[in-house]
Structure formats: C-alpha cells, structure tokens
C-alpha cells in the first residue's frame, strides 16, 4: 500500500510524515505524531473530542484526511499553553471544575479558544451553540459555560 509524504506544521513545528490516504488527520496526529490530546469519541464528527484548528479554522480532525494537512498549520490542545503559562481558558477550566473525566476537555478548549478569538464577548447562548458539537457527558455543561464566560470577561479586561 503506497503511502503519501506530507509536510505540515503542528503547533508551530514543522513535521513530516508518511500516511495511507485513508488515514484521518486524527489518526495521523495520534498514531504517527503521538499527539494524543485530540481524542476519538466517535470518528464521525458528532462529538468534537478531536477538535483542532487548521489554518485557524476549527474542524474535527476525524473528518479530515492526513494527506489534506499538506502545507497547513494545525493547532491542537498541546499547543494552547505558552511554555509554562497556561492559556486563561485552561486555568479557568481547572478553577471552575469545568471537567470531570476530562476526555472532552481538549476538544472543548480548542473550540472555545477559537470562539474567543473570533468573538471576545459571546453571550451564554452563543457559547452554547458554538459548543453544540462538543459533547460532554459528565458536567451538564454548566461549569464549562461559566468558565468560558468568565475567561472571556477576564481576557477583555486584560486587553
């Protein structure tokens, strides 16, 4: 089975890999690059646990092929913190207990970071609809929504 050579950037680092064209970006991130922050909860774009950004755009990495990453810039949960400084969202998620089991957390952080970059002052309803594709089964979303709203408020004050 012939594999395709792909060059891409992940969290700012240039990476190369060979992959079968059937492999998804999620497969490549996890199995070839060993970035296991993105999770496979469904493989069909219904749960959002595999959320990443591609050229700044929020997508499900299970709904994109690895070969499509050629020349792109991929952002994953592993790239959210800057050095030892957590992103304000990461900090607030811990403080608010916006996670219980934590399996959906990487996807939700990637998704909410993308939201706040696009809309620094979202309403509760906007946050809820933006995150409708990120399933969480533990929290009932309450503390997640509160953490995002408070992060947004704090980031607005800081800027």
């Amino acid at each position: 089975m012939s594999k395709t050579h792909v060059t891409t950037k992940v969290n700012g680092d240039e990476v190369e890999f060979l992959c079968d064209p059937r492999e998804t970006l999620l497969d490549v991130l996890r199995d070839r690059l060993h970035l296991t922050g993105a999770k496979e909860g469904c493989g069909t774009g219904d749960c959002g646990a595999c959320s990443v950004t591609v050229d700044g755009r929020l997508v499900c990495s299970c709904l994109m092929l690895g070969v499509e990453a050629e020349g792109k810039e991929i952002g994953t949960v592993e790239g959210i913190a800057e050095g030892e400084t957590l992103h304000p969202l990461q900090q607030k998620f811990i403080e608010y207990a916006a996670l219980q089991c934590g399996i959906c957390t990487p996807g939700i952080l990637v998704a909410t970071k993308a939201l706040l970059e696009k809309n620094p002052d979202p309403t509760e309803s906007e946050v809820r609809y933006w995150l409708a594709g990120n399933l969480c089964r533990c929290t009932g979303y309450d503390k997640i929504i509160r953490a995002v709203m408070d992060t947004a408020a704090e980031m607005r004050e800081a800027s």
Partner: protein
Amino acid sequence: MALDSSKTTGFKYVGTRPNRPDGLDKVTGRAKFGADAYAPGMLHAAIKRSPHAHARIIKIDTSKALAMEGVKAVVTRADFATGLEGEFGDILENVMAGEKALYDGHAVAAVAATSALIARDAIKAIEVDYEILPHVTDVDAAMQAGAPVIRAGAADASVPEGLHPNVVRYYESGHGDVEAGFAEADLVVEDHFVTEATHQGYIEPHACLGTLGSDGKGELWCCTQGHWYVQKVCAACLGLETSQLRVTASEIGGGFGGKTTVFIEPVALALSRKANRPVKLVMTRSEVFRASGPTSSTSMDVKIGMKKDGTITAAQGTFRLQGGAFPGAPCEMTAMCAFAPYDLKHVHQVGYDVMSNRPKQAAYRAPGSPMAAFAVESVIDELCGQLGLDPIDTRLKNASREGTRASFGPTWPRIGLVETLEAVKAHPHYVAPLKKGQGRGISCGFWFNHGGETAVSLALSEDGSAQVAVGTPDIGGSRASMALMAAEVLGIPYEDIRVTIADTATLGYNEISHGSRVTYASGLATIKAAEDAVQKLCGRAAAKWGIPEDAVYWEDGYAKPSGPNAGDFEPLHIDEITATMGATGGPICGHFEATPEGAGVSFAAHIVDAEVDPDTGKTSVVRYTVVQDAGKAIHPTYVEGQFQGGAAQGIGWALNEEYIYGADGRLQNAGFLDYRIPVASDLPMIDTVIVEVPNPGHPFGVRGVGETSICPPLAAIANAVSNAVGVRMRQLPMRPSRVLEALESAADG
C-alpha cells in the same frame, strides 16, 4: 489508643474547593486515557461482529484474513478458556460468542494486524456462516408465550413456575396488605409506564493495550471503573493465574457504570498471546452502542392509593426489566428503590429480569432506580393533581425518615429526605411564576450507595509530604477529595499530597468504582490510612521524647505531648519526624485494607420547568434545580458537578435518548448522530443545593453522591411536561412526536 478523626464540623481542608491535582494534565492533553497508550511492536486489533440479532454460528472461515499482508493473529472463541460458569461464563460468552450470536453486534472473531486499517480490512475478509434464528427485543414480547428462547435453563430458583424461560430472575417484597390499603384510599391511580434502553454515553470508547506471553504473564492497560475486577475476569477468560496479570487503569473518559464490566480486554490479551506482541484494541463508537452495556428497557405498572389529606394508603408496583441476552437486569434494585422515599403501611413490589436479543445490560448510574422513580413519582403527581394537593407537602407528609420502615424491609437509619424536601420547598424556584406553555415538575429519587473492598496505602516522604495510592479510578475529581481528606487528618497542606491510582500489583483488591462508593469507601480508607501514619508519627515523637506513645497527640501537622503530665516538649512538625525516619525505625506508611460497610443512602429531589411547543411537541427544559443530600461535601464543586451531570443525563433519557431496534433486530441508531445525548445548547444552567445530613458510617459524614442525581429527572421532567400539556406522559423518551400525539389526544377527548 486508636486514633479517631471523626467529625462533622470544624474542618480545615474538607469542604474547600481547591484545584484538582490532575487538572494540568487534563487541560493540556497530557492525561493518558485508554486509547493513548502505545508500545513498541504494538499491533492494532479489530473485532468481527454479528449482524444478526439471533443466529447459530455454523462456521467461521478466517483463512482469507490470515493470509493478508500484515495480519498477525486471528482469534475466535476456541482461543479462550473453557468450562467457565456463572458470572465469568456469561462475561466470556458476551466477550466472544460461542455457539450462537445473541444480539446484533455480538463479537464472533478478532484480528490483530500491523495497522488499524489492515485490521479493519481483515475482519471484512472473515467469512461467517449463520443460521438465522427468530429473535425478540421487546421486554413484554420476550415474556409472551411463544417468544424465542434466548437460552434455555437460564432462570434461577427465584422464578415462579409458569413463566416464560426468558424470565430469568424474580424478586418480590413488601409488607402489610395492599388491598386493605387501597380500600382505605379516597383515590387510587393505576398506570402503565414504559421506558426505552439508554446508554451511559461516556465519550471515551472502551480501549485497552494488552501484552500476554506464553509464560502466562501479562500486562494490561485499560479504561475501566475497576481494574482488579478486570484482572480477575481476564485471568479467568484466558486461564491465567490472577496475580500474573498486572492491570493498570488509564485515565477514564467517563463510565457511569458502563465500565464496570469487561468487553474487549480478554480479546486483546488472547490476540497478544497468539501474536506474541502487544495488542491495542479500541472500540468504535458504533461498537460501543451495539456491543457494550446499555440500560434495561422497562415495562412497569404502578398503583397507589391516597386519602384526601395526602396520606398514601398503599402502593404496589410491577417492574419488568429487559436486560439483553444474559441474566442480570437490576429488577430487584428497581423494585427496592421504587417506594423507598415513602413511609408505607402497605406496600408490595415485584421485579422481573427478562432476557432478549440485545446486548447484555450494564450498570448505569443508580441501575434500575430512575425508571422506578419515573413510574412512581408520575403516579404521585397524578394523585396530587387530582386531589388538589401540593406535591412537596404531600411528599413530606409521607416521607421516609429515621425509624420508619423502608418499603424493602429494614428500618431507616438517619436519612436526609425530609431535609431535602424542605430545601426544595424553601427554594425560590419552587414558587417562581411559570409562563404560558410551561409546566413544573418535581420528583424524589433514592439510591442505596455502596462500600466494598477497599485498600489504600499512604507513604510519607522525608520532606513531610505524602503520597496516597488508591485503587479506585478517578472519574470525576476524586483525587482532589482524597487529598482533602488526607490533608485533614495529617494536618498538612492539600498541595503536599499526591494521590495516585495504583495498579493491581501495588494494592490489595479494590472493588469497582460503582455504587457511588469512591468518596465514601476510598475516602474512608484514606482517612484510616492517614490515621495509621499519624499513629506511627506519634510513636516516633514519643520515642524521641522518651514518653509513652499514648501521651502524644496529633494536631495540625504536629506531634504534641498530650498534657503537662506527659512532659514539656516542643511540638515536632511532621517534616522533623520524617526527615530522620530512616534512622528512627524506617519508612512511615499508613495502610487500610477492609470492607467498609457504612455507606449512607442518599435522597434527592429535583424541580424542573419545561416548555412545550404546542405545534411540534418539542420540549425545552428552561429551568432546573437539583437538591440532594450529600452527607458531607468533601469538595463541593465536584459534588455540584455530579448533581449537574446526573440531571443532564436524566434530561437526555427523558426527552430524546433511546435504543431503536428495527424489525430485523438490528440497532438503528448506533452513533451520536441519532442517539441524541444533550448538547450544550439543549440545556439551561443547572442550579444545585447541597443538603448535608451526615452519614454516621463515614468519619466525616460522606454519603455517595454520584448516582442519586439521575433518579429524579425522568419523573420530574415527565411531570413538568404532563403539567404543561395537560396529559399524563407514560412513555419515555418524550420525543416530540409522542408529546404531539398526547396533545392531539387531549384535544380530541
């Protein structure tokens, strides 16, 4: 002198809300879950599953798969232990079918290959000849004369004669004379209720990485609620000595009961043994729905009599639970929980465990109780409505309390139902005005909670910090609770304690994390282990001072002489003792190994406002309040989280979640697209009230909190919808078409 740090007030650490110790790992993607493990030379596995609901397996031809480039091993049932009976026999039969495929999705063979894609291709190349047999998936149909028999002789001694062989267990209890009780009633309401099977819906599919050699020694990494149980089951299924298999629990991406049993781990180990390489096996989402353990579906009849003043005179319930192709549906739990909130002179409950051609049900958060509450609390709501009674006052009037006799027999110890109901009555939500098209519902809920075998080990480091090894996977922040309880006893800061989930080689047997037992039992064990260490610390101080051990006491991290008679010594801080512990007797550790038996039951009551679109029958939950007795909230934020999560799952169960089987017996909605769990935009904020009526069976008063929160929502939402549309909703889920039909029937009649 045995130390006793029991208290219910005056806490320094317990009851605070620090950041969880594993928070950083979980927000950076560093935490390793079931599918996140890799090993050198690792193979990927995939499972071939039956597309038929019920079929005899005539022949499995694996030759084409084995011939494929990259395929290293194929296993079928022949590669597992023989002669297993009872629980382990059923689990193995479920893990890999023997003579018959018993449900759509039942495993029949598995492949290990050098890549996941090759493994997936290879299972398509396995050819299975089936003789298709008649099937049944509905609980009432499965009990009917003439229904296909799933497995002859599966019924146990409890089942009365004359019932269909698919009825495999029977439970009956109660007291008094219900007929006499109904005769005293001013109003008797009897109704039939139906609920569909739902799935725990954890976001992380089952996943494991297993290595097993021909020497019978193995290593297994998996996401589970109980790795000692996995160890025991896998050893049995593969014919190993239990101690030769070491199981490490990964971080777990949700369980809710669904990861209390074993589905794929023996398969990975069998493939590994055959290929002599590590094997990783991860379920797809579709496999999770088809072949893990959803809840029972139910068919229930409930009859309750009430006087005009709200006194319940008698209650009777019949609960039929469909549990899939194996015995085990929690019919007795359903029956026992049904009337638990009420002090009843006359009560009678019956449960049936019924097999069908569906996957073997597994525990789901208070297994069996939410359905019972749906039926019972709906009837109580109907009685209150017809008699013009306040639903909370009526429940208070009949509430179980300390000293009253429980519906299932014993006398209640100290319980917190009355306090919980009073908190509901006092909550602003209960009297807030409703808008047009909205209805309000309330419901009680009850769950037992559990103790179980528990072992905890605590080791002090030279610098006075502490490591706590517990055996219960951290599903929702339990490391934080353990650290808080250890900090409270040791008198050292929360941050100085590291809590680790130990593997099976490191601690004695720990029962599965189920029955809301973690904060109760592992918490109790952590307290006891810390007390054990404190005792030793006091001993070292006593030796240094040359005074008797019992003349030393422990306070805020210091050993102190217990009074003027003991002598005048400067208190010794923990780090002064641990710094020299190697030279004063060796390492200082604390242990606890026992089976705590003081789990406190927990009651909850929920208030829901629902709004129904009269044109489409679509329901929105617009306001939700959870009130529950936690005994003592160790980390209140995570207690609130449990309350909110249970409510959200209950909302899904009530409104949209269901297993949909076609006439062909195949599951039609094996994915998150059509198995509709609540999304963020479906829910309101969920308010919580933590009631604290301490459990005397725990040093700090903890009651389990994880499960009770899913007991009231089905009924509370059904009551809200019923009150909004003016028609009693008797079937779940209350999907829009069903509500619309109810609205039409109301308009017609």
